[in-house]
């Protein structure tokens, strides 16, 4: 079984579980939208909201991602499936890429909702040329976040009492994504005069981040979930 076939198999399984259980659509998406509304209450000044809209979108993404990662590994450890996957001799790199792929799809859906919320609630608008930059930023950032979430989520799923470890381990690591994605999104939105050309170096950083953690995760995942 090649790693890619395993990855596709596991991603399909994860997404089918999501379609059946509807946890992301019924719980996580409303949570993310609610977070955006709470930001609006907290900041309650339209000029400020529009200016910080990119930052808020990515902050809401980070918090929602914690919930998604905990959910995707709760599904595995609920009935000992993670052990069964290991006993099945499935290549850990395949499990890592598969779960990352499924997490990336769920994150993408979440980010579309958050973007719509930003446009509606915060009057953010995308300058014409910014759309390409926006899509590139979201794809690169989502990939990086999915890899990091799966990697540290796997470690946290290992044994009891580790859930609290996930935010401590993961949030510092995604700091570059938070900075890079926000700056690139600001360039795409044209916030305070940022031109879209300023965004592309940040996209480069996001791609590098995703590549490093994609490779690092595939190599390290097996040891981290081994209990």
């Amino acid at each position, binding site marked *: 079984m090649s790693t890619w076939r395993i990855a596709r198999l596991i991603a399909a399984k994860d997404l089918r579980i999501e379609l059946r259980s509807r946890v992301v659509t019924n719980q996580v998406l409303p949570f993310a939208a609610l977070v955006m509304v709470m930001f609006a209450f907290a900041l309650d000044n339209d000029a400020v909201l529009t200016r910080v809209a990119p930052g808020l979108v990515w902050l809401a993404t980070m918090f929602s991602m914690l919930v998604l990662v905990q959910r995707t590994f709760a599904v595995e450890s609920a*009935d000992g*499936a993670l052990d069964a996957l*290991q006993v099945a001799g499935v290549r850990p790199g395949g499990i890592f890429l598969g779960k990352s792929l499924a997490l990336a799809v769920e994150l993408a859906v979440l980010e579309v909702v958050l973007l719509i919320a930003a446009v509606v609630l915060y009057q953010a608008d995308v300058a014409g040329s910014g759309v390409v930059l926006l899509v590139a930023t979201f794809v690169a950032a989502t990939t990086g976040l999915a890899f990091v979430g799966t990697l540290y989520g796997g470690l946290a799923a290992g044994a009891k009492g580790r859930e609290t470890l996930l935010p401590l381990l993961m949030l510092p690591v995604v700091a570059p994504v938070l900075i890079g994605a926000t700056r690139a999104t600001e360039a795409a939105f044209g916030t305070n005069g940022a031109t879209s050309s300023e965004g592309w170096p940040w996209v480069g950083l996001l791609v590098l981040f995703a590549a490093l953690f994609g490779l690092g995760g595939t190599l390290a995942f097996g040891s981290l979930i081994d209990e």
Partner: protein
Amino acid sequence: MEPVVHLAGVVAVLGGFPVLAGADLRVERGEILLLRGPNGAGKTSLLRLCAGLLPVERGDATVLGCDLAADRTAVRNRVGLLGHANGLYADLSVADNVAFWGATVGASAEEVAASLDRMGLSGRLAPVPVSRLSAGQRRRTALACLVARRAELWLLDEPHAGLDAAGRDDLDATLRDAAAAGATVMVASHELERAGALATRVVEIVGGQVRE
């Protein structure tokens, strides 16, 4: 002929406690071995160790020719383990679960269908999500996944628990067929009269050690 399982003075630790304290065991191909012993004697840990899930702290352990002390991941895809947990995805249907676990080891669609059939699950139960099954039906589904695995070494922990009479007959028949087909089976169980009739050899596990 090289034994399927060869343990010599194996020590395994869980949370600082030596669950296995110098276990010695030899199991030949085609045997159905029954592991008897009180709770906490180390039956479950022995099975998990043979499946490569528990690290060997001291001693030597060779399963299907793989030295577990050196690399305990090599043996895994040739072993099937049914522990207390069923290893099923509650949101997925019976058929989806068995298909998934079969696919992880490259079983064909026919083999998956045969496994479902074997455990009497190919009827109206197939599309039902596992979350809505009874404990016995979940056990049957987990067993169907094990059948679909076509492992060389079957490790079962209290497999009869929760099964009705028909279920137990299916289980015994499945294990006999597997042994006949050249697989090796190790069953940890309290139910002596049931498992006793099935087993070709019985060993006792007490205080993390094996007694013939």
